[in-house]
């Protein structure tokens, strides 16, 4: 088992978590996830997840003109996205606690 397998199940939550701090454009989200320690996260996975969450109505988006580079499409949580994040975060907290206690026994 490697972390990319685990990441697949929680990428939605990770992206929602990053965007809950502040809005971000595609590559910015990738970079922040990597900086947070998810170094193996794939660009295409993040981009695909952003597009899916946007289609699901969890995100709003807006374009910011840039003098230096291409226009940037920023994504941010809307109300639906925030509710989704809260729900996922609850599930994750419970799941992580269960796994932590389980794995602590195995680890000993």
């Amino acid at each position, binding site marked *: 088992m490697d972390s990319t397998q685990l990441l697949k199940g929680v*990428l939605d939550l990770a992206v929602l978590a990053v965007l809950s701090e502040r809005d971000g*454009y*595609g*590559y910015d989200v990738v970079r922040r996830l990597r900086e947070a320690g998810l170094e193996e996260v*794939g*660009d*295409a*996975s*993040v*981009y*695909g*997840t952003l*597009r*899916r969450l946007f*289609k699901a109505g969890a995100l709003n988006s807006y374009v910011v003109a840039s003098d*230096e*580079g*291409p*226009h*940037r*499409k920023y994504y941010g949580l809307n109300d639906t996205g925030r509710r989704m994040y809260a729900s996922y975060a609850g599930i994750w907290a419970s799941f992580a606690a269960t796994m932590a206690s389980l794995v602590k026994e195995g680890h000993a």
Partner: protein
Amino acid sequence: MTSIAAYAQAVRDALVDHPDREELLEDLDDHLAEIAAESDVPLEERLGPPAAYAEELAAAYGGRPAGRQRRRLELRRRLGDLHATLLRQAPYRALVGFLPELRPGWWLLRGYVLALLVLNLAGRGHDHLAPENPAEWVVVVASVCASVWFGRRGRDRVTRLLAVAVNMVAGLALFGGFVTAGHLAGDQEALRNIQADPRVIMETASGVDGEVYNIKPYAKDGTPLTDVYLYDQDGNPVITHPENHGYSVDRSCGEVILNRYPLPLITDEYTVDDSGVAHSTTPCPTTSPAPPMPSVPPTQPEASESATVTPTPTKPAATPTPKRSR
């Protein structure tokens, strides 16, 4: 910038059958440009091959094509890669450049083949490879015109699928036509062989009784001869057909050599035992010598000789050793 556009296009191509392709890839170019702006390392090196990127993208987005569809995409991608590789070879490039020029020719052939297919299916139960009357010509011309019109049409998805189906039918019909043509040629060959068959038809001198079905040789002094082997000028055994005249060869004494005359004939009214073998009243010969093979073809007999079967031959062969003369 070109590399970004090329990479994005390759990703689009790889996701050509994705149901939400436009929505999924809406700002792909900007996203890729953002990545490219950060480093000089080529996109392909940082993100992997476009096909893999597309696969990962589709997996994260969900609603990815089903396994069969994905395998088809994979196959298409591989064919695309092969095509791109081959395009680097000049002969393949020349061939690919030349093929479109053949298309009008194919349209004509396709129209003709489909018309003939329809005519043969609807037709008179025998295969023909060309129109045989004015009405059929009208069908062929109309079909050819339709085929050319269809070929010159714009290519949307439905038309493309239809074109593939039509081309496949025409291709199969064309193949079938070749096979049929082969059979017809074979039939004609067989007919020629029949005509060239060196069959010896002997008729009685009077012509009244028709074909000769048995031969009764006599010696110079009028003694009936038996077990006389007859061959024609080419060394072929002279065979008659008594079965055409209500007789059959008596095989009760074993297999009979058919050019050894006179033939032991029995009428079809003879008794037939339980094993189905007809019996004649004559006793079986004790020996059955193997037929001699003529080392050289015997002299061609005069027509009157071969056709005349009389108890007293007027002109018997004087020399037992035949010499070749035609």
